């Protein structure tokens, strides 16, 4: 093993190393950090960014971006809140759905939002940044319209209406937060799809070289639409979880969370240029963001300094990522010369 190989191994494992160092650091810096109670709280926050980040990773891998996810969090949450609080009124009758149906409808709203993104991007050749910037405003506006900007409080439901149990997603099962379980399940499925199915292979190819992918027979537009639908669906799931955790839905929930999702993906080694990214990297990236944020809160670092430090960490992560890619290219070149 030469020096480059050693550096490479360290670089590849860097997200886990950084996470471990951060946990150790905060355990000493803040007394109450390394307690099961605090760690579970961190994990609950992490689950939200993690799920958003998983959807975002798919989008980034195709060399796209989805700015609408934060707003879809809000919209899906408001849909769920409204359906529990007000029910659904049609022809003068008000229907109260059961919680599973409500969750399904909320997720469907997110998937449809993603479908709209995908169609705008592929059918009208609008740059993903602009298309999702537009739908971000539209979704946020629609979220506010459901309640005229107000909050739906107290979403426990009523036994008589048969819509209780919504708070489950904010709870723990056997001492483990439901949100984290959902994240791990989604992460497992998403990672399997990305690495082990033709679809995953195709979206990696789209991000790596869209022309070559198309000329190899990949249905580029269709696959891209699916990717944005997945991202929208993930956002809606986060909307449901966030609403459930608060037992209330506010139309501004999820504001700027798309940035945390992008940051989680980038910290986990996903390239904004497309073609490179892993789901578990993003999950670790989400943990890094969560640990930094909550750790600094527990240390009593001011909110303003938190922002600055978070920004620095993200930039540093990308710089290291770039260094790794340069080194990789250098090693590939060497291998090529050795092959000759």
């Amino acid at each position, binding site marked *: 093993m*030469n020096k*480059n190989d050693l550096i490479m191994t360290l670089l590849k494992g860097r997200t886990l190393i950084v996470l471990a160092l951060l946990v150790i650091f905060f355990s000493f810096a803040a007394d109450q950090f390394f307690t099961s109670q605090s760690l579970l709280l961190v994990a609950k926050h992490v689950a939200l960014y993690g799920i958003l980040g998983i959807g975002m990773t798919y989008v980034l891998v195709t060399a796209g971006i989805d700015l609408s996810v934060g707003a879809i969090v809000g919209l899906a949450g408001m849909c769920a809140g409204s359906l529990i609080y007000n029910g659904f009124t049609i022809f003068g009758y008000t229907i109260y759905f059961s919680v599973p149906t409500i969750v399904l409808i909320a997720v469907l709203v997110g998937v449809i939002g993603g479908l709209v993104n995908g169609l705008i991007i592929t059918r009208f050749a609008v740059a993903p940044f602009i298309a999702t910037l537009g739908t971000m405003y539209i979704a946020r506006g629609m979220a506010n319209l459901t309640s005229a900007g107000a909050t739906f409080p107290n979403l426990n439901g009523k036994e008589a209406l048969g819509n209780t149990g919504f708070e489950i997603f904010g709870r723990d099962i056997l001492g483990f937060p439901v949100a984290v379980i959902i994240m791990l399940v989604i992460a497992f499925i998403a990672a*399997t799809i990305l690495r*082990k*199915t*033709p*679809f995953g*292979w*195709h979206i*990696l*190819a789209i*991000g*790596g*070289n869209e*022309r*070559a*992918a*198309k*000329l*190899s*027979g*990949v*249905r580029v537009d269709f696959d891209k639409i699916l990717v944005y639908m997945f991202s929208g669906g993930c956002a809606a799931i986060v909307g449901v979880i966030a609403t459930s955790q608060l037992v209330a839905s506010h139309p501004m929930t999820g504001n700027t969370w798309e940035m945390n999702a992008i940051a989680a993906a980038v910290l986990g080694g996903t390239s904004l240029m*497309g*073609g*490179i990214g892993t789901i578990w990297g993003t999950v670790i990236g989400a943990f890094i963001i969560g640990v930094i944020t909550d750790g600094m809160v527990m240390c009593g670092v001011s909110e303003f300094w938190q922002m600055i430090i978070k920004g620095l960490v993200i930039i540093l992560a990308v710089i290291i990522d770039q260094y790794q890619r340069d080194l*990789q*290219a250098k090693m*590939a*070149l*060497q*291998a*090529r*010369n*050795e*092959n*000759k």
Partner: protein
Amino acid sequence: MSDTEIYLHAEKIDKIYPGTKALDQVSFDVKRGKVNVLIGENGAGKSTLMRIIAGIEQPSAGKLYLQGREVTFPSTVEARANGIAIIHQELSLFPNLTVFQNLFMASEHTKNGLLDDAEHRRLAKGVLERLKYPIDPNTKVGDLRVGQQQMIEIARNLLIPNLKILIMDEPTSSLSESEVDTLFTIMRELTASGISIIYISHRLEELMRIGDFVTIFRDGKLVAEAAVKDVDVPWIVRHMLGKGKNYPKRSEQIDWSKRETVLEVKDLTLPKSGGGFLLNKVSFNLKKGEVLGFYGLLGAGRTEIFECIMGLRPLHSGTIIKDGQQLEIGTLSEMIGKGFAWLPEDRQRDGLVQTMNIEQNIALSNVGAYSTAAGLIDQAAEDRDVSDMITDVKIKVADKRLPILSLSGGNQQKCVFAKGALTHPTIMLLDEPSRGIDIGAKTEIFNLIYQYAEKGVSLIVVSSELEEIIAIADRIVVLSNGLKTAEFTGDDINQDNLVKASYLGHQHSKD
């Protein structure tokens, strides 16, 4: 000035990469006002030496002397300051900018601190006229074809003031014969004005035509040098390969009239956006197990025929019959399903996904076929097929999980071929399959073509290299300016016939 004044001398250059010696004690002279030809297989070290002379890389040992004075080029800036310019094999243009913006990138002319675009356009026009290449300087480079882009790349370097040494790394790999002629005229003008040219190419007949001195590299060593007038092609090939080698001509005698027709194209027509035709009533057929050659100059319509068949040109008209049935042209993935495979002309841009490894690139077109009931890829089947394919097309690689870019150009091209072959096509469309790869790899690609033809696959091969297409094709269709001008078989396939037919379409349109 003596006849062979040495302008630049490289003394005992070593270049060591970890684990490999790219250059081994190479001493090389650049003769002033001459075309200094470098030749050797890929990886022989010639490009590395050029990168050192151009300041892109630093030698591990050895010295450079410019007119007897020792120099070092820590970067391209110093090399450029000494009038040394390099035209890269891979294009380095800005597709989103216009021709004149590309020509003057980083050497802009200004007036009162603002860009002087009038001056840019005037100078651009001048240099393009000199190249006999009347492209509108306001055209976006991304809209130009590969060959046209290469001429822009060449024009850009001609604009360098104080040019002393011009290094050209395979400048003709996507130029047509007439463009090559123009380029050679320009090169003669340059050498007459005292500029030294270092010329790298894999095209032997070109080297014999334009070269003054030839230097041969093999395995990082300089193995032979001579004045071109004193040597012949077999001598060069012998030194390059260490043994004699020529394009093998497919020898077997087949009565093609008895073979079944797998593809029949009738009156294929494709309108040009600005009026006129890219393809004008082109008809041809393809027999089972046949290698059909398409020869023609740049813009003759060769690539467009492939694009029509593969579903990328929905505006085309005409009838295409496959295996006796009219063929509905669908999307590209549908056409792959119907038994077609296409190797695009531009390997890097259209053929490979650079971020994926060798295995993933080869399996890309066929990965859907490995999907199990659960939707997962059947890793074992995929793994076995890719490994078989790597053996079948003879890709030299230790581990198929290495990055695709760790392979040499020839092996990369074999991967693109393997990707097409893995979908079990009955018809393969190969667009310039030997572009920019060395003779050894070329011969291997040709052998692959024969191998698949013998299996019963029908292949259409586009090539702008005369000797190549003559060697490999059973039958040759010549295209010119969108028209089919000739079709040759057997002994009629020769350079004279092909070249004559390649101009016919232009005369036709002027009448």
